[in-house]
């Protein structure tokens, strides 16, 4: 669904990484690790078309990202659910409307209905639906971001440090949600520093760990 083939990305005159290949196939569950500043977030942005590779090929659902117009990228993003570290909500809209936003912009707001309520219950935010995002705790925001990422039933879920601001119990809950989605056939890519999260995931789902370090992406074990 999303393929990176020998991709390089340069920023400010320096090469952040090069020769990176990655395939987000249906049902795959992958972790992306590496030191801060290695380019994990940049790599994720290449995966959902926010940035363009300096060289190499990025294919989003069969299309060459370099040749895609902004509208085509927008349509591709409707198949990708993104969970940001800082969540990124529209702070003036209630949580429920934020979660329904992908359906709204796709002109499918009427589909939200009961599904939205189920989703809010699923992520444990049924009682926070009418609150504004700044009123939520870190964990609640992460769960709301996950709900927003999945409401449109995307083929791929990309999460950038989804457990960065939450406690272990909440991390486990989020992980279970992601594993459930993966079992539905969604491809999952999680960028994280949290080795405990990776170890916990390995006991529940067949996953692959990739490490971005020294400008290269390598398959790694949990011990890395």
């Amino acid at each position: 669904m999303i393929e990176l083939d020998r991709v390089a990305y340069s920023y400010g005159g320096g090469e952040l990484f090069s020769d990176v290949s990655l395939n987000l196939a249906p049902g795959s569950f992958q972790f992306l690790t590496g030191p801060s500043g290695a380019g994990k977030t940049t790599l994720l942005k290449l995966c959902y078309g926010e940035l363009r590779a300096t060289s190499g090929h990025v294919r989003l659902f069969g299309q060459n990202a370099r040749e895609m117009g902004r509208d085509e990228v927008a349509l591709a993003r409707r198949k990708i659910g993104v969970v940001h570290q800082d969540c990124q909500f529209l702070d003036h809209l209630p949580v429920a409307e934020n979660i329904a936003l992908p359906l709204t912009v796709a002109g499918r707001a009427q589909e939200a209905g009961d599904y939205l309520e189920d989703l809010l219950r699923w992520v444990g935010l049924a009682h926070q639906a009418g609150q504004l995002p700044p009123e939520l705790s870190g964990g609640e925001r992460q769960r709301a971001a996950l709900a927003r990422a999945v409401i449109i039933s995307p083929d791929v879920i990309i999460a950038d440090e989804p457990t960065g601001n939450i406690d272990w119990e909440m991390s486990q809950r989020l992980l279970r949600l992601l594993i459930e989605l993966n079992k539905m056939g969604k491809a999952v890519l999680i960028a994280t520093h949290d080795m405990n999260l990776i170890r916990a995931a390995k006991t529940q789902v067949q996953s692959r760990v990739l490490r971005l370090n020294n400008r290269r992406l390598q398959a790694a074990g949990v011990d890395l």
Partner: protein
Amino acid sequence: MITAFGRFIAMLAGDPLADRSVPPTGYTARLTLFTSGAMAFLAVFALALSLATGRLADRWSAELARTSTLRISAPADQLDAQQAAAIKLLETTPGVASARALSAEEQQELLEPWFGPDIPIASLPIPRLIEIIEEGDGYDPTGLRARLQAEVPGAILDDHTRWREPLIDAAGRLRLLAVTAILLIAAAMGAMITLAAQAALSANAQVIRVMRLVGARDLYIAGAFVRRFTIRAFAGAAAGSIVGMLAVLLLPSTEVAGGFLTGLGFQGAGWFAPLCIPVLAAVVAFFATRAAALRTLRTQS
């Protein structure tokens, strides 16, 4: 054209949920309302000037075009004979409805403003004047001049062209100025709304980023801003137009002040003309905001 109009309506109808995506921005809202209101107020006066000068040009043209004057300058003993010959000739000229020699009293009235009421008109070598009223398409001035030259050597035909043309030209220029003013007002309003829209877009960079993240297309994002600014411009211009029309309505009447300026106003169906101003403002706001939004979204990608 139909497609463009369809897009205009579709974007205006839009999606109320999309509008909620953009937080209300008090500063740009007030700026747009005030600008479009003030511009509409000025546009009402420019429109009134345009319509008034149009009426003035038509009136001057009509009044002067249907009449002309024949002046007969000849020795005193030939004046009566030449006048009679001229009237006879004019009565048989196609396009002339009537020809009438001005009486001594009428000529005295014409000269009074310059020479006073006691002018001894009978003792002065004043030419005779014949007023010609035209009918249908009027007479052929070249042919008439040729016949007059042959039969009434002291006659000079004045068809008022040299008076009429500069007056109509002046009225036309005034009208052009008024139309130019309306266009400048529309352009200034477009510029102000563009700046306000750009300010709103810059202030909402994070909103745009989130909208894009969840798959919103540029037109969808732009639409939320475009609708908001179009509706604000329409509301502001409607208010400005109403105030402008009231101001025109309250101008002094012709009977009180007289003169050209008192003709500055709307007459009959002309009162409906200012209703176009809010619509024009909305169209200007629509295209100005759309262009600004799409340009900004392109640069932010």
